[in-house]
């Protein structure tokens, strides 16, 4: 079959290009790791004071890499003088956590782990209530925690966009695309083969990035891993079809790279790294045309808030719509070469 031949050729070409393979699979990991160290300079285990904890709970906490210090009596002053990251008080009413919150990402991770440990204690169910108090700042200081899911989405988008765009561009510039159209292949077959050929690499990349982020970098992950992968795959499909489409408007690799500041960089700003709520209305409206905005929103919901695919279906629909429009435009754009 023609499509299979084309897919096979695209994959073979990419496999032979070792440097591009390395860029696709390892560059996101390197940058993510760097980001991780930048934003999590303090890598020590968090210190948690516990009042009235039982042995299984403490064991669960220690399993989660928390250094537990038991107290009979302690208050906020104890946290500061003993340089604890937080204090967990357990009484009949439930859980009460006081967080030092000097470093919001530590606090957030600590609270998450305490919640998980407590939930495990309660037999999988979340405890009725965890009262949370902050010594510094409040629950809103979650800047860097939110960054993780966005970065995962961004790197998937960026590298897939670049490599697929340049892939088709090479075909255009070298004349092989025209040569391809002198065979009985149909335009949609070319687009579909490109989506599949590069899509297979995008799937591998997505899986590597997601697992690395969660397993090695310990990125916050409350929801289901496969939900994260589904969202990223949809995003990769958007990046793939957009990359191929924009390569139509580039006449060299360098011109393709010039799309990065125009198409890729602005998406970071609209993806929620900077809170959008405070922005002017027209700026907020612009975010609605950024695929990464929807992906980041969905990833945040799943990884950070533990929501499922059902809760983010409108984001998924938006991503699917972007992909559909770009794929359709791609088939049209090839008309420039052959009407049929």
């Amino acid at each position, binding site marked *: 079959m023609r499509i299979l*031949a084309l897919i096979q050729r695209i994959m073979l*070409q990419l496999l032979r290009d070792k440097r591009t393979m390395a860029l696709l699979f390892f560059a996101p990991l390197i940058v993510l790791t760097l980001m991780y160290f930048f934003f999590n300079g303090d890598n020590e285990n968090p210190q948690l004071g516990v009042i009235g904890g039982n042995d299984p709970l403490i064991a669960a906490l220690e399993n989660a890499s928390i250094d537990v210090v038991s107290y009979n009596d302690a208050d906020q002053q104890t946290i500061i003088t003993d340089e604890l990251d937080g204090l967990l008080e357990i009484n009949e009413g439930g859980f009460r956590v006081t967080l030092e919150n000097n470093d919001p990402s530590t606090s957030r991770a600590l609270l998450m782990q305490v919640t998980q440990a407590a939930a495990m204690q309660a037999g999988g169910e979340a405890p009725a209530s965890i009262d949370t108090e902050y010594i510094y700042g409040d629950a809103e200081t979650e800047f860097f925690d939110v960054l993780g899911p966005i970065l995962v989405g961004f790197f998937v988008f960026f590298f897939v966009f670049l490599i697929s765009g340049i892939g088709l561009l090479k075909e255009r510039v070298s004349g092989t695309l025209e040569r*391809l*159209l*002198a065979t*009985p*292949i149909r335009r949609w077959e070319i687009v579909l083969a490109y989506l599949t050929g590069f899509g297979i690499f995008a799937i591998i990349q997505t899986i590597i990035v997601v697992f690395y982020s969660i397993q090695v970098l310990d990125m916050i992950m409350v929801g289901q891993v496969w939900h994260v992968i589904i969202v990223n795959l949809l995003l990769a499909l958007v990046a793939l079809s957009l990359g191929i489409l924009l390569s139509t408007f580039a006449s060299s690799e360098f011109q393709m790279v010039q799309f990065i500041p125009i198409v890729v960089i602005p998406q970071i700003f609209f993806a929620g790294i900077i809170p959008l709520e405070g922005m002017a209305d027209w700026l907020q409206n612009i975010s609605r045309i950024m695929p990464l905005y929807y992906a980041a929103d969905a990833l945040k919901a799943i990884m950070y808030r533990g929501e499922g695919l059902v809760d983010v279906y409108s984001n998924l629909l938006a991503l699917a719509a972007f992909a559909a429009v770009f794929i359709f435009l791609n088939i049209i754009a090839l008309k420039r070469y*052959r009407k049929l």
Partner: protein
Amino acid sequence: MESSISINKLGKKYGKTTVLHEVDLQIAGGEIFGLIGPSGSGKTTLVKMIVGIDSPSGGTVEVLGKRVPNLSLLQEIGYMAQSDALYPELTGRENLRFFASLYKMKRSVLKERVAYAADLVQLTDELGKKVSAYSGGMKRRLSLAIALVHDPKILILDEPTVGIDPELRLSIWSELMLLKMEQGKTIIVTTHVMDEAEKCDRIAMVREGGILAAGTPDELKAAYGAADLEGVFLQAGRDAR
């Protein structure tokens, strides 16, 4: 002889520049037809429109009785572009197999055709090498092999011998003759080399987007009273002004 390709009032404009004006041309089945002219005269645009990968601004092209563009027609056309359209990361065999598999062909036939086409252009021993390691002449020959790998009735070759050493040029031409004589293929060749034009059954002289003269080399020489085709070209060009 029945007409294999029929071109009627074919024109092409890019914006305001006219690249081709109202070209009429009939090409018979089983002949080698040469399009002769300097670079920029519109030869490539003309052959691309015959293949159907460029759309005319006016006029029609019919190939084997079907209006171009037509997907099923592409099965019958072997096209060799002016620049080698090959995948340098892949080996010669992989390139050949890839293009062959875009056509309707049985798997067993495909294998045979790949071997045949490679043998015809004397590349059998080099098929395992990556194309990035090929010389210019080898790439040209591989392009030719790709053009005929699916056994098309019509071969359209855009400057097949440019940048190829004389020895190889001779062998490519004798192969083309063979394809015509033994398999009755219709072959359209563009060239700007006059001695290649002599080898064609019929030629059309293309200049500035129009056809100055068409006929067999001998007819043209007689009509313009010139000793060689170069003379015909000059005379026809002067007459056109």
